[in-house]
């Protein structure tokens, strides 16, 4: 039992945000606007303890992320510690800042999988979106090295108005790079992406064409590459399940050591987060006020309370409910059954031609 009376599940995944430092400036970054500074980052030994505690809690996979995890000088030691704790290790990288030598050392340390973000199939556009000249070339080079080392590669392609017409070319690029999996990830509007929403938002026609194209690509490339895709939030009929249920499947540790139910949870005011500096992960998972705030489904109002989908999507995303309604307990207004769904339709139509506000420290 969690301390709020809801069933306590075992977490499967840990998102370890090792640092907020990143050479790229992607305008859709999911990191918070207020970024943790280098001086506040957890040290190697603390991460090693967190990984051991995570494995003890039942966590199977750790996603080494950021910022750019390669900005940590101890990335190899950190990866080794996660591997030694028995966790499946996944490196989520921009590829800028990871040298071939570092990658080789990571592979030796037991790294299981690499995910590289690619901003577009067109190099000039890709570098413009990343806010970093030459990023595209470096991504291609690191991807080739990942494949040479026989590590499995996923290409993460974040889609928005500027590149959504090139989904087919992105999948072709992923295939050419030797990826076994590609994520067609429509922007989710939190953090920096929320700030840039008007400039990133695709049109309904673009989104509908993209959905048809993804289905076609899946059939065409069946057995050659796995294509994972999600419907973009603001055009969905039902909301996405909040990280598989708040405090149910996963946890997120920030660079400074705060433990969050999801990476955007700090956007909800009034939640009390505990830190790995003061508590064990098990204590936090069971008893931290933030984890118990929306655990289970008892807090949900109508139309969720009597909805047959409440154990499927848990009323949607708490952070989105707060961002769009001002009430984190509300039905996620992405759901067409929400009384406030009209607001989402209006926001999706509120596209602008503003220049990107790049993510910077």
């Amino acid at each position, binding site marked *: 039992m969690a301390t709020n009376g809801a069933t306590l599940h*075992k977490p*499967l*995944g840990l998102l370890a945000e090792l640092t907020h430092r990143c050479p790229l400036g992607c305008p859709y970054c999911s990191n918070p606007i207020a970024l943790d500074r280098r001086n506040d980052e957890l040290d190697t030994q603390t991460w090693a303890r967190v990984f051991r505690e995570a494995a003890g*809690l*039942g966590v*199977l*996979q750790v*996603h080494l992320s950021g910022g750019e995890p390669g900005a940590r000088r101890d990335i190899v030691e950190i990866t080794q510690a996660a591997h030694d704790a028995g966790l*499946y290790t*996944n490196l989520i990288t921009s590829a800028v800042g990871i040298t071939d030598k570092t990658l080789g050392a990571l592979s030796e340390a037991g790294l*299981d*999988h690499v*995910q590289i973000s690619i901003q577009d199939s067109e190099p000039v556009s890709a570098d413009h979106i990343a806010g970093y000249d030459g990023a595209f070339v470096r991504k291609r080079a690191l991807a080739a090295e990942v494949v040479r080392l*026989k*590590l*499995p590669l*996923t290409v993460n392609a974040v889609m928005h108005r500027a590149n959504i017409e090139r989904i087919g070319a992105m999948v072709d690029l992923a295939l050419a790079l030797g990826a*076994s*999996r590609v994520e067609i990830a429509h922007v989710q509007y939190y953090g920096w992406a929320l700030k840039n929403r008007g400039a990133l938002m695709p049109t309904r026609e673009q989104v509908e064409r993209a959905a048809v194209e993804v289905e076609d690509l899946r059939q065409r490339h*069946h*057995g050659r*590459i*796995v294509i994972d895709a999600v419907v973009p939030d603001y055009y969905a009929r039902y909301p996405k399940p909040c990280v598989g249920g708040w405090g149910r499947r996963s946890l997120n540790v920030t660079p400074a050591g705060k433990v969050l139910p999801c990476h955007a949870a700090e956007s909800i005011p009034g939640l009390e987060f505990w830190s790995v500096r003061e508590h064990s992960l098990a204590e936090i998972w069971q008893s931290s006020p933030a984890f118990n705030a929306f655990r289970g489904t008892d807090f949900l109002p109508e139309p969720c309370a009597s909805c047959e989908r409440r154990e499927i999507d848990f009323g949607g995303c708490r952070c989105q409910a707060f961002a769009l309604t001002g009430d984190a307990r509300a039905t996620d207004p992405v759901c067409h059954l929400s009384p406030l769904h009209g607001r989402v339709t209006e926001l999706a139509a509120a596209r602008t031609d503003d220049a990107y506000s790049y993510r910077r420290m």
Partner: protein
Amino acid sequence: MNETSAVPEIPPDTRPRLPRGVRLVHNEAQGGWVLLAPERVFKADAIAAEIVKRCTGEATFGEIVDDLVKAYAAPRERIAVDVAALLRSLADKKLLEL
């Protein structure tokens, strides 16, 4: 024809193996066998685990089937069809190399 007719046959001398980045582990906290893969976790039932365990890259498909026939005392034809269907579906998800 039955529903397995669409599954291409697996040659008996194929040596199926898990690719790097895919691991079968037993985890009490998560309730048994799980197949860990890039950013995905699949629960494996006891039978699937027995099959995947044998996909070491050393044993051939024919040997794996023979071994399972002995272990489960079931008709060879039936086991061969079931194992082939599982392996093919794992390979399509890039969870197995054939």
